């Protein structure tokens, strides 16, 4: 197998799950990798769930749609329920702590819970919770370099939002730290 990573990022619309994925593929592209980002909106037109499949690979990507993932980042309970079984054995599952009532029970994957929303509040910028999560994710699965995520952010943020760069950078780093601090539930092999 090549180094292909197939990641699902899922939550409510508005939690920034789609842009998290976009940042990831943009950064990967900057690193010269093959990428694909496939969003899926729930049936509801407004609110409701949203997710995206991110594929990053050293080789040409065939299907942008896969049903098993090497990693999952989830931001609400329905998404957790939907995707927990779709993570490949040995894979990674990161979830936002405060949105999950019943945490996953799988032991054949690495499971990490991150208090991203709390952390974002602490940074007094609740909209960066997703970047905190992204930072944590990249700590465990360094498929792109954090600096390239920041570079990507710089490219996608419109002018009048460029002032948000520092706070995002901070959030990303806090995420990495949280992931290091977190006691990952170990994989029972």
């Amino acid at each position, binding site marked *: 197998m090549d180094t292909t990573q197939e990641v699902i990022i899922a939550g409510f619309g508005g939690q920034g799950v789609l842009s998290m994925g976009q940042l990831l*593929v943009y950064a990967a*592209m900057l690193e010269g990798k093959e990428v694909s*980002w*496939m969003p899926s909106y729930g049936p509801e037109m407004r609110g409701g769930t949203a997710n995206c499949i991110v594929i990053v690979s050293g080789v040409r990507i065939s*299907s*942008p*749609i*896969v*049903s098993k993932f090497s990693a999952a980042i989830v931001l609400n309970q329905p998404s957790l329920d939907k995707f927990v079984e779709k993570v490949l054995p040995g894979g990674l599952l990161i979830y936002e702590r405060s949105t999950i009532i019943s945490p996953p029970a799988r032991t054949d994957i690495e499971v990490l819970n991150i208090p991203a929303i709390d952390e974002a509040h602490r940074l007094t910028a609740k909209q960066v919770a997703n970047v905190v999560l992204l930072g944590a994710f990249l700590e465990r699965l360094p498929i792109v370099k954090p600096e390239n995520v920041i570079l990507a952010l710089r490219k996608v943020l419109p002018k009048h939002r460029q002032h948000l760069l520092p706070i995002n950078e901070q959030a990303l780093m806090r995420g990495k730290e949280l992931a290091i601090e977190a006691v990952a539930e170990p994989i029972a092999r």
Partner: protein
Amino acid sequence: MPTHKEKSEVLLMKGNEALAEAAFRAGLQAYFGYPITPQSEVIEYLMAEQPKHDCVVLQAESEVAAINMIFGASGAGARVMTSSSGPGISLMQEGISYMAASQLPCLIVNVQRGGPGLGTIQPSQGDYFQATKGGGHGDYRLIVLAPASVQEMADFVFDGFRLAEKYRNPAMILTDGALGQMMEKLEMPPKGSLPYPETPWATTGKRKDRKRNVVTSLFMQPEKMEEVNLHLQEKYRLIEETEVRYEEIDVDDADVLLVAFGLVARICEKAMHLAREKGLRVGLLRPITLFPYPSKRLAELSSKVGSVLTVEMNAGQMLEDVRLAVEGRCPVHFKGRMGGMIPSPEEVLEAIEAIPAKLHVELQR
């Protein structure tokens, strides 16, 4: 395919936006359209970027108006495009028939969603028949291109204009909501790489040195109307001879031949890899032009392989063209999902595995 790669840029874009940007770069002169999910990004992108280009971008009051504005602008010699999805494309059928009959070039983009009726906004391939057999009245054909990547969403805009203008016939990009919404990186061809054709037939004002130009599809004498039709049919035969495009992967030793277009072809490619890992000899034929259809190549392959498996996001529409090409030379199987459901590579693998074993090795009849 655009040849001016030297100045191409590598970009990361959504399919719909890549298509819109490509349209500008391909020298689009007028776009008329009406919003509909999952393709409203096309008009939104065009509107936002329009100031940078010398191009008319107008939101019409309806798809009926849009296709007829396209008619007028094309008849006046401009390079024109419209885009829509299921319900809107249905409303354009009269206008499309008129354009084909009046021999007006244009590019129509159908970003398919699940039907019939209002349906759902999820991706689908349910408009294959409408696109390839002619959903409007009378004997006409569209040149139909089916992209499978964001790169092709952009590239086929160039091809679409080129073919439409070469044959003075409407061309269609038949894509779907998933391809429209997904992001991939792509090489975006530079502006100015597609020259404008001569349009001596266009209604630009009757100069003294020529007879007046008339754009019409009315020929009251049936003899004359038949002539027009014969001309159209001749054109379509020529297109069938010269413009067929397809991609094939690992067909040489294939036992089961997958046939799929657009996004589904990529899902099939993955399924093929999975199958090959299991030791099954699976190949893939991806028609790129749906009209003209690669019937000849499929006919050839069908006498070599054990069986064909057609996979579509519909109830089996391209399946008919596959069966017409295979003509009984080997069994043809079908796997379809409908109403906005996307088949997964694993599902396709299952369908491959469900083909009775002997068909994997034995030629039929």
